[in-house]
C-alpha cells in the first residue's frame, strides 16, 4: 500500500501525471484487496466443510477484519496537519464516494433498515428516500462551495463567513451534540455484533471494537480513516448482497432481486388477505385481546388485584409443597411468586406495559400493516379515518424532510468533501457517494419483501416440531429478537404467534436462505464494518471540532502543527472512551437518539450554511440567533413530546403535538424557523463587511482570476 502511505509533506500541488499514477495505484490495490477478501471467504467456507467450528469462524472474521483496519491505520500514520485533517486533499472522487458511503451507512442502515421495512412496509420507505435524497441538497447547496472554501471543519466555515467566534462556538456545540449521540449508537452496535460473532461479554465487545476504531483514526486521522472506509465499504456491500441474491435465486430463480421482487410483493399482498381471514389467526388475535382485557380489569383495582395475585401465587406454592410435588415445579412456583410485583406502583407499570404488548399483538398480521399499504386510515372514510390518513401522510412527509435536511447538515459527512483534490472532483464525488449508498438502499426493500415471502409461505402453517433450526438458534440468542409460542395450542405456527425484532432480518437472512455459516459470519463482519466506519468518521469530527476550532482557532492560534495534531489525538482518545462508557450503560431509546441527531443537525447547520453561500447579506447576528432559535425549538419540541426525554427533564404537562407531528421529526419546525430568523435579524442589523462579500464570491467560483483571497490551508 505504498500509494496510501506515500509521503507528501502537505499540499495539494499535484500535477495531472502524478495524480493519474496515484489513481491507477489505488485501483490496483483495491482490486487486489477485493480478490483477496473473496479468496479469504472461500477458504473459510472450505474449512467450515472440513469441520471448523462456528465460534472459530466468528473469531477469525473478527480478528482478520479488525487486524486489516489496524494495518491500514498503521501504514497511513501521519502527523502532518493536512494529511491528518483532510487526507492531503487528494482523494479521487470515486474513492471519496466509497469512503463517504461507508462513513454514512451505519449499523442502523446495515442491520436495522431492512427490519424496519419488514415491520412497517411503505412507511419505512421514508428512511430510504430521506437518507438518499439528502445528497441532492449536499450536491446542489454545499459540497462544491465547502471544497472551494477548503479549510478543515464545518465550524471553520461558520467562523470565517460570519466573522467571529460566536457562530464558530455554536457550530462546535452543535457538531458535538449530533456527533456524540450518533457515535454512542455506533459503539453500542459494535458491542452487539462482536458479542454475537464471538460470544464474548458485551462490555468486552465494546472495548475490542473500540481498539479497532482507535488504532485507525488515532494514528492516521482522516488519511487512515479514508482508506479504511474504502476497505470497509467493499466488505459491507459484498456481505449485504450475497444473501439477498441467493434468496432471490431460491424463490424466483432470477439473481437480480431488485428487479423481480415486485412480483413477490404481489404474492405477499395476496397472502396477507388470506391471513386476515384465516380462522386460526383470528383465534390467536382473540386470545391476545382477552389477555389485554384481563389486564385492563386488573388495572382498574391495582391494590386488590395485586393482593389476589400474591395470595394465589403463595397458595399454589404451599399446595405444591404440601403435595410433595417435583422440585422443578416448586422452583417454578417460587419464581412465579417472586415475579409478582412488589408494590402498587411497580404493578401498575408492569401491567400497563403487558397490556400494551398484548394489545399490539391483538391485531391481524401480528400488528404489521399490509406491506404495500400506503398510509393508515382512509381519505374517503368517516372523519376519524380521514384524520388518521392525513396525520399519517403528514408524518411520512415530515420525516423525509428531516432526514434529508439532516443528511445535508451532518458535519462528518460534509467534512469528507474537503478531502477531494478540486471543486470539480467534489461535485463528482457526491454522485459517487450516492451511487454507492444507492446500491445498498435499493436492495434493502427487496430483502424485506423476500424475507416476508419466506415467512408467510414457508414458516406460517408449519407444525412447531418441524420449524427450521435457525428459529430455535436465534430465540436462544435473544427472545426480544425472535420468539415463537404456540398461543392457541394447535401445534401449528400462526403468524400471530411469532414475534420478530427488526434487527434479526438481515442477520438471519443467510440461514433463512440456507447458506453455510461462513456467510452469517460475513454478514456480521459487514455490520461491524458499517458501525466501525461511521464511528471513525464521527470521532474524528468531534476531536477536530475541539482541537482545531476550539483550541487552535480560539485559544492558542500560535500552536504548532505538531501540537495541534497531538492534541487532536489525545482528545480522540478521551471522546472515544467517554462514548464507550455511555454505550456500556446500554442507554434506552438509542434509536430515537440517532434520529434526533438528524433533526438537531438539520435545524442547527442547514440554514446558516446555505444562506452563507447563497445570500451575501446574511450576517453574524442573523446566523447566530438563527442557529440558536432552530436548535432551541427542535430541542423544546422533543423534550415536551418524547416520553423518554420527558422523563429525564421531568416534564409532566400533557403532551401537545403540533399538527400531530411525531417528536422524531421535530426538525420540521426548527429548519424553517432557522431560515426565518437568519433572514429577519440579518435585515435588521448591519450588512457584513467587504471582506465577507469577497469570501462569498471566492467560494462561488471554482477559480477566479485576480482573486487575492486564499482560504486554502495545506
Amino acid at each position: 500500500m505504498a500509494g496510501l502511505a506515500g509521503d507528501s509533506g502537505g499540499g495539494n500541488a499535484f500535477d495531472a501525471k502524478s495524480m493519474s499514477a496515484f489513481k491507477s495505484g489505488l485501483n490496483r490495490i483495491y482490486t487486489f484487496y477485493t480478490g483477496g477478501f473473496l479468496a479469504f471467504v472461500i477458504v473459510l467456507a472450505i474449512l467450515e466443510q472440513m469441520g471448523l467450528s462456528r465460534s472459530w469462524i466468528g473469531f477469525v472474521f473478527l480478528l482478520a477484519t479488525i487486524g486489516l483496519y489496524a494495518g491500514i491505520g498503521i501504514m497511513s500514520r501521519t502527523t502532518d496537519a493536512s494529511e491528518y485533517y483532510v487526507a492531503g486533499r487528494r482523494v479521487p472522487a470515486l474513492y471519496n464516494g466509497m469512503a463517504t458511503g461507508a462513513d454514512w451507512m451505519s449499523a442502523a442502515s446495515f442491520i436495522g433498515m431492512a427490519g424496519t421495512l419488514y415491520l412497517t412496509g411503505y412507511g419505512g420507505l421514508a428512511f430510504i428516500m430521506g437518507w438518499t435524497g439528502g445528497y441532492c441538497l449536499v450536491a446542489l447547496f454545499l459540497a462544491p462551495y465547502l471544497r472551494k472554501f477548503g479549510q478543515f471543519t464545518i465550524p471553520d466555515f461558520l467562523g470565517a463567513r460570519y466573522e467571529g467566534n460566536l457562530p464558530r462556538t455554536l457550530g462546535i456545540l452543535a457538531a458535538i451534540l449530533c456527533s456524540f449521540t450518533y457515535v454512542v449508537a455506533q459503539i453500542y452496535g459494535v458491542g452487539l455484533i462482536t458479542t454475537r460473532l464471538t460470544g464474548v461479554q458485551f462490555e468486552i465487545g465494546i472495548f475490542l471494537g473500540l481498539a479497532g476504531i482507535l488504532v485507525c483514526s488515532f494514528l492516521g486521522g482522516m488519511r487512515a480513516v479514508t482508506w479504511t472506509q474504502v476497505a470497509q465499504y467493499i466488505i459491507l456491500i459484498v456481505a449485504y448482497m450475497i444473501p439477498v441474491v441467493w434468496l432471490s435465486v431460491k424463490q424466483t430463480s432470477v439473481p437480480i432481486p431488485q428487479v423481480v421482487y415486485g412480483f413477490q410483493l404481489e404474492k405477499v399482498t395476496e397472502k396477507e388477505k388470506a391471513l386476515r381471514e384465516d380462522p386460526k389467526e383470528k383465534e390467536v388475535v382473540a386470545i391476545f385481546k382477552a389477555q389485554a382485557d384481563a389486564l385492563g380489569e386488573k388495572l382498574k383495582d391495582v391494590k386488590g388485584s395485586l393482593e389476589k395475585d400474591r395470595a394465589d401465587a403463595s397458595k399454589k406454592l404451599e399446595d405444591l409443597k404440601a403435595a410433595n410435588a417435583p422440585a422443578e415445579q416448586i422452583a417454578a412456583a417460587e419464581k412465579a411468586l417472586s415475579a409478582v410485583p412488589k408494590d402498587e406502583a411497580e404493578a401498575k407499570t408492569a401491567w400497563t406495559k403487558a397490556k400494551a404488548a398484548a394489545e399490539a399483538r391483538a391485531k391481524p398480521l401480528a400488528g404489521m400493516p399490509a406491506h404495500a399499504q400506503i398510509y393508515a386510515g382512509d381519505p374517503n372514510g368517516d372523519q376519524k379515518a380521514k384524520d388518521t390518513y392525513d396525520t399519517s401522510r403528514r408524518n411520512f412527509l415530515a420525516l423525509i424532510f428531516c432526514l434529508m435536511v439532516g443528511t445535508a447538515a451532518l458535519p462528518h459527512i460534509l467534512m469528507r468533501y474537503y478531502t477531494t483534490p478540486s471543486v470539480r472532483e467534489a461535485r463528482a464525488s457526491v454522485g459517487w457517494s450516492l451511487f454507492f449508498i444507492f446500491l445498498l438502499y435499493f436492495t434493502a426493500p427487496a430483502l424485506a419483501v423476500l424475507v416476508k415471502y419466506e415467512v408467510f409461505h414457508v414458516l406460517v402453517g408449519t407444525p412447531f416440531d418441524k420449524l427450521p433450526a435457525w428459529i430455535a438458534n436465534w430465540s436462544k440468542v435473544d427472545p426480544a429478537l425472535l420468539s415463537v409460542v404456540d398461543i392457541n395450542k394447535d401445534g401449528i405456527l400462526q403468524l400471530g404467534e411469532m414475534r420478530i425484532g427488526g434487527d434479526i432480518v438481515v442477520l438471519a437472512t443467510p440461514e433463512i436462505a440456507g447458506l453455510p455459516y461462513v456467510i452469517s459470519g460475513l454478514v456480521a463482519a459487514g455490520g461491524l464494518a458499517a458501525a466501525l466506519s461511521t464511528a471513525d468518521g464521527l470521532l474524528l469530527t468531534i476531536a477536530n471540532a475541539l482541537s482545531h476550532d476550539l483550541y487552535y482557532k480560539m485559544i492558542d492560534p500560535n500552536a504548532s502543527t505538531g501540537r495541534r495534531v497531538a492534541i487532536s489525538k489525545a482528545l480522540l482518545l478521551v471522546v472515544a472512551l467517554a462514548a464507550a462508557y455511555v454505550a456500556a450503560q446500554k442507554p434506552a431509546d438509542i434509536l430515537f437518539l440517532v434520529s434526533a441527531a438528524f433533526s438537531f443537525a438539520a435545524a442547527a447547520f442547514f440554514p446558516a450554511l446555505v444562506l452563507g453561500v447563497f445570500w451575501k447579506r446574511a450576517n453574524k447576528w442573523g446566523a447566530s440567533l438563527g442557529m440558536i432559535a432552530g436548535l432551541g425549538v427542535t430541542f423544546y419540541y422533543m423534550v415536551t413530546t418524547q416520553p423518554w426525554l420527558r422523563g429525564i427533564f421531568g416534564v409532566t404537562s400533557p403532551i401537545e403535538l403540533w399538527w400531530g407531528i411525531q417528536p422524531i421529526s421535530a426538525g420540521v419546525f426548527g429548519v424553517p424557523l432557522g431560515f426565518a430568523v437568519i433572514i429577519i435579524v440579518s435585515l435588521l442589523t448591519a450588512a457584513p463587511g467587504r471582506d465577507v462579500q469577497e469570501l462569498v464570491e471566492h467560494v462561488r467560483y471554482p477559480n477566479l482570476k485576480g482573486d487575492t483571497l486564499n482560504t486554502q490551508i495545506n
Partner: protein
Amino acid sequence: MQLNESHERYWQKNLNITAMLLAIWFVVTFVVAYFARELSFTFFGWPFSFWMGAQGALAIYVVIIVYYAMYMGRLDEEHGVAEEMED
C-alpha cells in the same frame, strides 16, 4: 477583485440549474409521496408509488447529482472559472 459580466452570467446560470434540479427533486419526493394513494396503479408488480419510494426516486437523485456535476463542469470552462491542475 471585480466580477465581470461573464461571472455574473455564470452565477445566474448556476442558480437556474440549481432551482430546476431542486424542483425535480421536490416533485419526485414530496409530490409523489403526497399523492401516493392515488398513484398506486400496478407497475411491474409494485404499486407505482411504492416503487418510486423504493427505487425510482433514488435513481432520479443519482441522475440529478451526476447531471449537475457535468453541467457545472462545462459551465466552469465556458466562463473561464475552471480550476487548472497545479504543476
